[in-house]
């Protein structure tokens, strides 16, 4: 397990020192959540209706900001070659990087979300469900994002391509994440949370294998 945690720890440290980590994602998320109520106007009924969806979209986009460099930085400076011949398999390396990305973006975004939910006038129950849905759903954003990141490794402006590849794959997370919040708003259980959890679980579990295949493809390129 040491090699796994070594890579995880290094990526966390890099995200703090070289930017592109929690601070950037949190700032972006907070700005989106501030701008939308300003644009829509002070209609709390309307805002609380759309709040879940907007905060979910905002969180996904914020997590996306730093995803393009997930493998690319290591690819460009040659670290990926050294990781590839290390005792750590590429699958485990991808899992470590996904975990580090989630800890440095998904988790802080989740922790900030109840505060931002205030701006949309979400009641406490809905706010709690937003928090829970992000806690359960953001890992799959990092994991599926890693697949996209592994595919754009060798491309100069790959960061622009990344959202196009991964956002369609993440629609279930946004639909059922926002659905979880509206279920809490209406007081009518709709099973969205369970589906979100299942999607996140399966997606997070399978993604390291796909991302490792993408990395292999690019190392050979």
């Amino acid at each position, binding site marked *: 397990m*040491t*090699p796994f*945690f*070594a*890579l995880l*720890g*290094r990526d966390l*440290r*890099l995200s703090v*020192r*070289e930017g592109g980590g929690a601070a950037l994602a949190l700032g972006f998320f907070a700005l989106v959540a501030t701008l939308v109520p300003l644009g829509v106007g002070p209609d709390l009924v309307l805002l609380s209706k759309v709040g879940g969806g907007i905060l979910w979209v905002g969180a996904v986009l914020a997590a996306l900001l730093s995803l393009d460099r997930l493998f690319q930085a*290591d690819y*460009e*400076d*040659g*670290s990926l*070659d*050294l*990781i*590839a*011949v*290390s*005792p*750590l*398999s590429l699958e485990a390396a991808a899992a470590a990087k996904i975990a580090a990305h989630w800890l440095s973006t998904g988790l802080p975004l989740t922790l900030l979300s109840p505060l931002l939910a205030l701006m949309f006038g979400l009641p406490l129950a809905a706010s709690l469900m937003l928090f829970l849905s992000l806690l359960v759903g953001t890992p799959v954003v990092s994991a599926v994002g890693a697949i996209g990141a592994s595919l754009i490794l060798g491309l100069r402006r790959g960061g622009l391509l990344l959202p196009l590849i991964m956002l369609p794959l993440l629609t279930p997370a946004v639909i059922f994440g926002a659905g979880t919040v509206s279920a809490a708003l209406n007081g009518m259980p709709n099973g969205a949370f369970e589906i979100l959890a299942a999607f996140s679980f399966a997606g997070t579990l399978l993604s390291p294998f796909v991302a490792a295949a993408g990395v292999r493809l690019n*190392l*050979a390129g």
Partner: protein
Amino acid sequence: MITSLTAEKLTVQRGSRRLVEGLSFTVKAGQALALEGANGAGKTSLLRLIAGFLPAAAGKVTLRDGATDICEPEERGKHIGWLGHHDALKASFTVSEQLAFFGKLYGRPLRPEERLALLDEVGLTRQAELPCRYLSAGQRRRLALARLLLTARPLWLLDEPFAALDIAGKALVGRLIARHCGQGGIVLAATHEPLGLGNESLRL
């Protein structure tokens, strides 16, 4: 214990371009082989193929481990000490942190005195706590050499090991290669400069 590295009728291809065709060679434990050739002849690609990053278009590479043959590229990778064209250093990490990370990644956590000994070996003792962004190209290369020693792998694949190094640095590379071979290791180096006396070379 790795006893030999054999390439049989190897064809190296990048995209649709064939760089090397029908190459065969054997390097035994304790030997160093210099890969020579003009720029673009396929030296780096051949090293990447042996490391298992690039699939062989034809032919095969075998690493002999005592009585067993290792043919599977990813399995082979676990015996390789890689010194690539890039130094693989993070600008915000200090020299010590860099080594500590790779030590853990390769399952060989370093004690502080071991780290100092390694840095002393490559002449970076005074830079131990300096972030890598302040290192010169030659110092970065020296740190990459320390990492190569740290990984303690039997088969060294070196891409331009002398690049950016001063005279003392080049002598250091020569000494390290000689010592590694003396301990029964194998060295394959893509280079434009002689590796040292008594080493064979292969022209691509």
